[in-house]
């Protein structure tokens, strides 16, 4: 298709979307605005009413604030790819490099950089006398590479000598078979990863934690001892100090968590969204919890979502998942988009569906969360890049609602790190 015909198709799709949207506005009883109780049936309607949110989006400024953005500016980005920049230095020196287009991820902990984007020579973290490698899985891929040490600077915050991971290092051993045996694709290039790296600012201080320590009952195949580029790597236990760590908890201050602050977007999406990640919870004048409700998680970083009376105990919030992942076409009564297309696997309702669920913390906190699912084909037209209503099914157990990036638009969401004190208690928790 040439540019002209693409534009015509886009205009036609827009027109159809507009007609549908107007149609919804004049239909009585089509939801939106009201605040139904626990687990209402899905209904056609507009986005959930943001005025009912306990912690709605409010712009935050200050020295502990780092811009984040969702837009189409990065050549290898994808819709709802939320990116920021990070400065990395050789430990204890002023030899530094700022790397843009780093994914902001509340579903993982630790900084990982695609090695081709890194110009610095960073010291290796050793397992005994051999270099340490790591295999990390994300929702739909794995990454592999050596653990190195760097000073990490973001906004006015700086963490000294933090273990981080280099991905796809050409001088390092190849991924072990125990790493690739998940069958997930390897994403150690900028093009495949969709970013220059990932800044994991999730619930954990350490990426693996006690399970990977020498005292653990068994060593999971996550960290590896890699004697040389050609010799096979073997799984190894790693003390906490050498594990890849959430840089936030290593800051001298504002180190108990973050706020992900993203403005709302329209149901049809937005071309560009500018928000912030704010460091610290209740540590400065600009990062108080306000009216946000605190939901503690279980040891794995999950909590419960209840929908129509059924509990989904593996649920979690994750800026690194670009869609909502929940339920199935039968339960929702809406079809999937055609397979083998760009939107294959996403929901494609004829009109936008809105519903509510309740989220429940391990501490007993209960709150209502509204969500909308629009037709992904309608949304797929350019130029929009940020969406609050794209969703895909998910059914493995423990069953889960995966509250991906669409959940975060229009909210200030607090992520408190395990073991760190905050005015609302010790992490891990989410608050919103």
């Amino acid at each position, binding site marked *: 298709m040439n540019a002209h015909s693409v534009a015509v198709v886009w205009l036609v799709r827009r027109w159809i979307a507009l007609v549908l949207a107007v149609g919804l506005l004049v239909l009585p009883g089509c939801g939106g605005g009201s605040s139904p109780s626990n687990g209402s049936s899905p209904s056609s309607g507009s986005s959930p009413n943001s005025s009912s949110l306990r912690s709605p989006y409010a712009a935050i400024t200050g020295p502990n604030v780092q811009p984040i953005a969702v837009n189409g500016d990065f050549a290898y980005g994808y819709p709802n790819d939320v990116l920021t920049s990070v400065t990395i230095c050789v430990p204890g020196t002023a030899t530094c490099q700022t790397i843009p287009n780093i994914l902001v991820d509340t579903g993982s902990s630790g900084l990982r950089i695609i090695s081709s984007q890194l110009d610095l020579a960073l010291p290796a973290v050793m397992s005994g006398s051999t270099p340490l490698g790591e295999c990390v899985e994300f*929702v*739909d891929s794995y990454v592999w590479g050596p653990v190195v040490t760097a000073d990490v600077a973001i906004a006015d915050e700086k963490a000294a000598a933090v273990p981080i991971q280099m991905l796809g290092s050409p001088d390092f051993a190849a991924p072990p*078979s125990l790493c690739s045996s998940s*069958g997930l694709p390897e994403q150690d290039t900028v093009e495949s990863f969709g970013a220059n790296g990932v800044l994991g600012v999730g619930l*954990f201080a350490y990426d693996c934690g006690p399970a990977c320590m020498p005292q653990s009952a068994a060593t999971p195949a996550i960290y590896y001892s890699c004697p040389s580029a050609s010799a096979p790597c073997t799984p190894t236990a790693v003390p906490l100090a050498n594990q890849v760590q959430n840089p936030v908890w290593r800051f001298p201050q504002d180190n108990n968590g973050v706020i992900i602050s993203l403005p709302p977007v329209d149901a049809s999406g937005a071309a560009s969204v500018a928000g912030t990640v704010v460091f610290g919870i209740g540590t400065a004048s600009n990062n108080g919890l306000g009216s946000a409700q605190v939901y503690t998680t279980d040891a794995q970083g999950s909590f419960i979502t209840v929908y129509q009376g059924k509990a989904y105990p593996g649920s979690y919030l994750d800026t690194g998942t670009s869609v909502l992942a929940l339920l199935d076409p*039968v339960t929702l009564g809406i079809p999937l988009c055609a397979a083998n297309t760009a939107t294959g*696997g996403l929901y494609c309702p004829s009109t936008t569906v809105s519903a509510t669920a309740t989220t429940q913390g391990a501490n007993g906190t209960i709150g209502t969360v509204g969500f909308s699912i629009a037709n992904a084909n309608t949304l797929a037209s350019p130029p929009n890049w940020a969406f609050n209503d794209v969703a*895909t099914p998910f059914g493995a*157990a*423990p069953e889960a609602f995966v509250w991906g990036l669409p959940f975060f638009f229009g909210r200030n969401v607090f992520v408190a790190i395990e073991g760190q004190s905050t005015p609302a208690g010790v992490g891990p928790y989410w608050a919103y």
Partner: protein
Amino acid sequence: MRHALVCGLRVRDRRHEEGAEDAASREAGVIQHKGVPMKTALAVFVSVWVSAGPAWAGLGQPAASVLADQQRMHAQLRTRANDSYTVQQIEVADGTVVREYVSPAGLVFGVAWQGLKVPDLTQLLGAYFPVYQAAVPAPVRRRAPVVVHTEALVVEMSGHMRAFVGRAYVPSLVPRDVTPEVIQ
């Protein structure tokens, strides 16, 4: 295709749930484990400690391969049975839990897992691993759970750091009176 599949199965599932208590007494079965017969209801487990590294019977393989794999496994094995299928639950010391669902015909028709990381699917999916790899969606411009739905194989997996979950089953091997939703 998936629509029809899940729809038809949900009906059976509902009946299954509603009659769960009746079914429990009706289905109270006998587990043969290490030659020791045991009266059991749905949720009664038998535990055995075995030694060595994790290995699993493959999807579509005979259940006997689960028992053979025990010899090489540093894991706790629990067996649970009813009239329709048997569940072999394998608990590895690193916290990984794998459940294998065995049909009355003796074949592993489904597997489910949860743990710190995704287990070795080359073993767990066995001969179906190439089918899974071929069906994993080509890189799409999103970051979302992996969902493979073909007539030959269903795989669903997701998770976040420290908590990965997934399941896989072969629709043609699932016993007629069983809904795939039991594979969890």
